[in-house]
């Protein structure tokens, strides 16, 4: 049983228009295009390891 996968009541049988497709800027974006943005954004939103700030602070004190 897959209790954590929500069932999808809106799936239409024969390819009806998707209910809430965001208006793609250039025609139709395939499904994965959104996934690509998610992949990128999820990294952008990750908490930043201290090592980066540490490195910049080190560089800053050297100069």
């Amino acid at each position, binding site marked *: 049983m897959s209790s954590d996968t929500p069932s999808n009541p809106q799936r239409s049988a024969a390819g009806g228009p*998707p209910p809430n497709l965001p208006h793609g800027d250039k025609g139709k974006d395939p499904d994965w295009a959104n996934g690509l943005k998610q992949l990128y954004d999820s990294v952008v939103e990750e908490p930043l390891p201290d090592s980066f700030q540490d490195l910049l602070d080190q560089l800053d004190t050297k100069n």
Partner: protein
Amino acid sequence: MATEKRTASEKADFKRELTEVVPHLRAFARGLCGRADMADDLVQETLLKAWAAQDRFQPGTSMRAWTFVILRNAYLTDMRRNRFRGEYDETVAERVLTAPAGQEEPIHLSDMHRALLTLPPERREALLLVGAGGFSYEEAATICDCAVGTIKSRVGRARAALNAMLAEGNIPKRSIDDNAAHRAILEELDDVAAGQGGGRN
């Protein structure tokens, strides 16, 4: 070479702006090389290089675009030295997979990422810049030091390849490990590197 000395406040601005783009550098790097640890190494390398070159940064221009150029060049250099094999990091995608809610047919991001990593680097980076980073074709062309038409064609080919792979579920498991594929990538890299810095009109 004009080496103007920067004022303290300009240096502070530089540091602040550089700090702000780190999350984007990480995202771009992860898309390029696929592994979180290697991506972060690449970002560290980029920060060092950007810091050393800070006199060449024009205040008021895009820090993100400027540092992406540095990151990209560092990636290409490292890739030639065979440091990155485009290995796929399963944990990254799995974490991401838990994120989407309310998406009709949740695309398997792990599949997508793996498919992305099978693309030749210059198509992958073009797609990342335009499709994920939100750069315009013009900006992406500047970052990759090529013509706008070239970027459009690379993005188009990348999209077509991903469409084919994802629609057919035909994603190579680890095609980067395959010698032939890897050689092909290195050859493409030679082309990329040859076109870079030449400043041909």
